């Protein structure tokens, strides 16, 4: 299109009044004079819908989870391969609070040029938090997030677009429906500001920040939880030696038998049960 995203002959730069009339009335582009000004990027800036419904609930749950993890000593790892400035912004919010007197929290940006999975694999410890800002189909992010259960980390995936991450791809998915990149970018800033603000509200509720009850701590003698019984546990293969392999789980490294599955390679994800790898499928967050 020769005129690009900006309608030819459009005399108004950004007619905010028109834009808000359009938003309030719900009129579609093209139904009023000057509609040509609202295509493409200019329209992107102007026609912000910014639905908060649903996002507010997801933000609330993610914030409480973050506060619990931070209280237990977590470090938060922030990554955004496509928009490194967003990852930097999230990290600086938590490390250097804008409100004097709020706790400085350990948050780190995964260097944008680094191999995200390799960096996280080497850095995270069970109980940590991984926050990513990325599209649903970013292969680097998909690969990192699916390892969350084996690494024992809490995962938060913030993004936008019609396509969402697969169900269970992260512990918390905070997603905007907009397909407009600039609107999404603006609203990401709101989302991580709110994530910080709400996390600090949670710190005022110490009773709710205690760790979730562990298996066996309920005193219900005789009952066995599913985690310890029939279900496979997610693990990441560290090294392989014939039918033996060393795997990484949230509980540490374990020696397992891999004779029941096709020979795995280091980095592969497996489900383990009673000392055996029972399947090579990629586990998702439960």
């Amino acid at each position, binding site marked *: 299109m020769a005129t690009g*995203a900006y309608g030819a002959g459009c005399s108004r730069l950004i007619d905010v009044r028109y834009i808000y009339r359009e938003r309030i009335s719900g009129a579609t582009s093209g139904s009023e004079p000057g509609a040509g000004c609202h295509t493409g990027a*200019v329209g992107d800036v102007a026609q912000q819908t910014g639905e908060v419904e649903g996002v507010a609930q997801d933000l*609330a749950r993610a914030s409480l989870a973050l506060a619990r993890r931070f209280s237990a000593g977590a470090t938060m790892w922030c990554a955004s391969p496509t928009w*490194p400035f967003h990852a930097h912004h999230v990290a600086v919010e938590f490390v250097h609070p804008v409100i004097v007197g709020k706790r400085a929290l350990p948050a780190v940006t995964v260097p944008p040029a680094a191999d995200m999975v390799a960096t996280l694999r080497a850095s995270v410890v069970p109980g940590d938090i991984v926050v990513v800002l990325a599209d649903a189909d970013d292969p680097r992010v998909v690969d990192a997030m699916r390892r969350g259960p084996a690494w024992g980390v809490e995962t938060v995936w913030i993004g936008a677009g019609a396509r969402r991450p697969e169900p269970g791809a992260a512990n918390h998915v905070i997603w905007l429906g907009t397909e407009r990149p600039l609107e999404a970018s603006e609203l990401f800033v709101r989302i991580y500001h709110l994530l910080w603000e709400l996390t600090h509200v949670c710190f005022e509720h*110490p009773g*709710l920040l205690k760790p979730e009850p562990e298996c066996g701590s309920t005193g219900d003698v005789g009952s066995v939880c599913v985690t310890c019984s029939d279900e496979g546990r997610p693990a990441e293969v560290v090294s392989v030696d014939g039918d033996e392999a060393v795997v990484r789980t949230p509980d540490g490294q374990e020696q397992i038998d891999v004779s029941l599955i096709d020979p795995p390679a280091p980095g592969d994800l497996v489900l383990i049960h009673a000392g055996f790898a029972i399947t090579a499928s990629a586990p998702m967050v439960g």
Partner: protein
Amino acid sequence: MPETTDFLYPFIEGDETDSGTLLEDLARSAEGKWAQSSALREATLTRCQAQLQATAAAMAERFRAGGRLFTFGNGGSATDAEAVAHLYTQPPSGRPLAARSLAEDQAVMTALGNDVGFDLVFSRQLIAHGRAHDIAMGFSTSGNSENLMRAFAEARKQGMLTVGLSGYDGGRMAAEGTPVELCLVASSDSVHRIQESQAALNHALWAGVQEALTSPG
């Protein structure tokens, strides 16, 4: 730290166990802040409309003459500077434009911070890079950062166009005698809400520059 609102939270001492109420409060709080952010965004874009037009036209003129955009800021504003440079060089549509964040190179930042002091980390880079047709764009929520004021002064000395994004009442960046020729202010006393509206200003300004560059003359 004693909280004067403790009486509102009967379980504040640590024996609270039901997270349902807190989650509801958090979601309501998120909705309220979201609405505040939207209202400030609308008010800011409306109030700054004429200024945005003028700034976009002045920037387009510089770009037409071969000028480049240098962005800078501290902390979260440094990430805004990075985001703006990213937007101008790798736009979702329209024409890519030369832009660079002065806060991004840690070798340069630490060298200058260590050797000449943090107040000069941006101005010294403009001494090295700046040309008369270029644009200096600084981001601050207070409008008072010394290293920004030094950079703007250096930029003016070189004949660069100086553009500032500020918050609160604009601070030094918007005060009399400021070296900032065009200062856009998101008037709020919340750093977060200011940055959110500055993001909208950045996008509106970028769209205005793109539009000005496609229109004749």
